[in-house]
């Protein structure tokens, strides 16, 4: 019997997840309808005592105009993400003041327009602001914990983070296309830090209204995607890194996170299949924040649909956050109209979204619902996060190779040899986690990374 929460492709549909999350002002995520998730940020400006009133005014302007447009378009649901800026995490009073401002505006919108609304609050993982990062102590971590503890009171409905444990080694591993080092960064360090961090985040939500939502391997797999878009590393390598990041992001859900996962976690479909949690995704409507080869396929099984992030700058029609919310609402309308017609129709649209991109890029191919289910099945079976990570690499290479041979995904000529290169590299990754640690230990520069901060 399958260990997956979703093992039948017929049940793997956008807007529906086995474990829906109800949050905020009556908003249900994964309960049948895809929800637009809007994120906005400041235009280029300093954040300090002097500029603080102007900072507040920007957020007031953004939330007001976004809610107004959503109401005009009669959007039934609206999730807003507030991703803090570093000064607002380092000084939680600031971040929490904006959290309160946004939460109040969303409550008002719910009362006035009957809109179901919620606020996701995403403080920064500021631990990465020094080298070697202190992961479990120090001023950055203290301020983060303070933020977690007070976010519920400030009105946050969902707590998320883009955590960075292991990133200090992963960057180099990526530009060197060094698969073993990537597996060490994600499968050993990343997974350990996730376990540590998410225990704290889940505890911060206990007995409160705020729910622990989810994380993202953004700093790892999206960095790889961006490097591949710039033709700096092979696309097949970035595709494998995406799958390799799955076990790390899963740790949050093992620790008690309930979803939705973070929008920029393109590993989301795997999380949904394995744990049944609702997921947030982003694609073509996040092109304002980053270009990608997965603009449509990322929509295929999403529960929230996001713009990633946009600065409050003026476009011809209006402010950029308003433009984004309009685009997201229209995308959601289409998905929800199709699924309201019939589950069969939701599956049709899902398959067209997937077919749009899957053949053109291996990074899209590994997000195909059927590929996801096949690999997820393998991962669910592994004993430890490390074993899952190692298996993720093997499965991804194998799936891409098979897909290429079957003509289901095209690879450019210079991509193909990298399948062998990665396979050979994987042979040097021991089955035993401790063995890998001992191989890697002498290679780690203590000025960059302190292994003790990971309990290694």
């Amino acid at each position, binding site marked *: 019997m399958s260990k997956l929460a979703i093992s039948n492709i017929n049940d793997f549909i956008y807007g529906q997840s086995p474990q829906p999350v109800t949050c905020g002002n009556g908003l249900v995520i994964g309960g049948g309808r895809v929800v637009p998730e809007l994120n906005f940020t400041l235009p*280029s400006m300093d954040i300090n005592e002097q500029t603080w009133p102007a900072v507040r005014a920007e957020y007031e302007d953004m939330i007001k105009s976004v809610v107004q447009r959503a109401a005009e378009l009669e959007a039934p649901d609206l999730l807003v993400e507030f991703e803090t*800026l570093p000064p607002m995490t380092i000084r939680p009073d600031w971040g929490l003041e904006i959290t309160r401002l946004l939460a109040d505006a969303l409550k008002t919108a719910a009362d006035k327009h009957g809109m179901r609304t919620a606020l996701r609050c995403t403080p920064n993982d500021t631990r*990465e*602001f020094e*080298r070697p990062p202190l992961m479990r102590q120090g001023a950055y971590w203290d301020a983060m914990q303070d933020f977690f503890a007070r976010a519920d009171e400030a009105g946050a409905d969902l707590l998320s983070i883009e955590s960075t444990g292991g990133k200090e080694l992963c*960057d*180099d591993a*990526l*530009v*060197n*296309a*060094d698969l073993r080092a990537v597996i060490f960064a994600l499968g050993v360090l990343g997974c350990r830090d996730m376990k540590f961090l998410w225990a704290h985040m889940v505890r911060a939500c206990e007995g409160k209204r705020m729910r622990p939502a989810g994380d993202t391997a953004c700093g790892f797999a999206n*960095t790889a995607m961006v*490097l591949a878009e*710039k*033709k*700096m*590393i*092979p696309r097949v390598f970035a595709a494998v890194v995406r799958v390799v990041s799955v076990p790390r992001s899963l740790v949050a859900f093992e620790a008690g996170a309930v979803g939705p996962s973070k929008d920029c976690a393109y590993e989301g479909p795997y999380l949904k299949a394995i744990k049944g949690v609702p997921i947030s995704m982003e694609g073509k409507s996040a092109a304002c924040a980053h270009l990608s080869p997965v603009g449509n396929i990322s929509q295929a099984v999403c529960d929230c649909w996001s713009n990633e992030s946009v*600065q409050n700058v003026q476009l011809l029609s209006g402010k950029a956050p308003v433009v984004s919310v309009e685009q997201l609402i229209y995308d959601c309308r289409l998905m929800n109209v199709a699924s309201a017609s019939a589950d069969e129709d939701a599956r049709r649209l899902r398959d067209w979204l997937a077919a749009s991109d899957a053949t053109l890029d291996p990074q899209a191919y590994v997000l195909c619902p059927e590929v996801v289910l096949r690999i997820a099945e393998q991962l669910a079976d592994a004993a430890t996060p490390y074993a899952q990570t190692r298996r993720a690499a093997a499965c991804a290479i194998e799936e891409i190779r098979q897909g290429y041979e079957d003509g289901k995904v095209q690879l450019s000529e*210079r991509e193909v040899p990298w399948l062998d290169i990665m396979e050979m590299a994987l042979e040097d990754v021991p089955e035993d986690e401790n063995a890998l640690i001992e191989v890697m230990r002498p290679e780690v520069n203590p000025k960059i990374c302190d292994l003790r901060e990971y309990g290694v």
Partner: protein
Amino acid sequence: MAKIDEIYEGVCKGNRKLVAEQVQAYVDNDGDVVELLNDTMIPAMRDIGDKFSRNEVYVPEMLIAARAMQAGLDIIEPLLAAKGHKARARVAVGTVKGDLHDIGKNLVVMMLKGAGYEVIDLGVDCPVEKYEEAVKEGAQVLCLSALLTTTMPYMKEVADHFKGRDDVKILIGGAPVTKEYANEIGAHGYGSDANDAVRALENILNAA
């Protein structure tokens, strides 16, 4: 007898062992190390850089080449120094204050070294004081990198700080940075990628 062609190929292919062996043989044979550097090793790195710009190789391949080049440099550098050979110029590279991204910065460091420059790596999160120190250490050109739109404005602060000082040139780059922005803040050059930074640096030095 050392094989010049094999050194060239060895750098391009990133064959560290081969490069070290052949450079050693060349040196043992009393070959002219300045000639080796300028006519073989630097052109080999330029070749691989151009291949990257034409999307024919990936960064990891460029990095392997750079490491092979370094293996050769380790051998000839004492000899170059003894001959009084000077690097083409001394340049400093750093990601600006508030920005911790180092992928792009590291690539620039590597490409500039491969092109025969003496490079001071200032690391990330560099305040203006750090660039000032580098100038005191003899850096003629400061290469500023930024990945965030929020940290990009700091480039202007650095440029303003050095405005009017003929001995210091500023070269900028990074994802959100544009040529127009470089003009706007009065930088002397703009590199669209690590290889382009080498070209931009050459332009600056030729113009000086």
